């Protein structure tokens, strides 16, 4: 498991590169690699810009049926999100990718788990499986 700090813009680039390496190793197709790296970029940026900095953890995971996948966890100690449902709403056909980009990132991955409380930071864990 790799643990990467997110404190600067350079760190966001580093997270992208690391996720790309692990995604390729997990056997994801090129399109799927692009999707998960882009999602990671969105979430890392969020942690930096809205969370005041944080951490990313990148893992290779295996499903019960033996499929490989990549799991990435983002944590920050920021102010947290008051209305999680609202943050996740904008659907595909509305607005041009503004806001926190969480719903966009969610569409790019297979599993998406968000936990956040005002005052206790935010945690997002995403998984993308190989086909």
């Amino acid at each position, binding site marked *: 498991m790799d643990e990467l700090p997110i404190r600067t813009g350079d760190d966001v680039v580093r997270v992208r590169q690391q996720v790309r390496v692990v995604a390729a190793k997990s056997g994801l197709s090129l*399109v799927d*690699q*692009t*999707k998960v790296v882009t999602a990671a970029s969105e979430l890392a*940026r969020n942690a930096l810009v809205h969370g005041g900095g944080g951490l990313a953890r990148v893992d290779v995971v295996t499903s019960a049926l033996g499929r490989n996948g990549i799991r990435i966890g983002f944590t920050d100690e920021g102010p947290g999100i008051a209305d999680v449902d609202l943050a996740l709403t904008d659907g595909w056909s*509305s607005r041009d990718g503004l806001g926190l980009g969480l719903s966009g*990132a969610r569409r790019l991955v297979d599993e998406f788990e968000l936990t956040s409380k005002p005052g206790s930071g935010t945690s997002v864990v995403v998984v993308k499986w190989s086909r």
Partner: protein
Amino acid sequence: MERVPVLKIGTTLFVSIQIDLQDESVVRLQEDLADELSATGARGVIIDITAVEIVDSFIGRMLATIGSISRLFDAETVLVGMRPAVAITLTELGLSLRGVRTALNAEKGLALLNGSA
């Protein structure tokens, strides 16, 4: 910080993004292009992203912003060479980049600029 060079050929500005852009470089590129457009009176901007593997919402918005800035200078922007995987991902993210014209490569992009000028 890496700075993306802006080339001027005739009345067109060419930008070729070769690296994994860091946020500062992205903002710097926007500023440099605005400066060049103002200084040279260029009528078109071609941004070549053939080598770009990841375009997230930040970079996507920068590209859309460059389009808007160019129009203020009465110039047209064409984004060329987007990779299929990037296009599919951007579409999934909900970014349609309307307001920026697109073409498969620089040659077609130039044809587009000359056709519409």
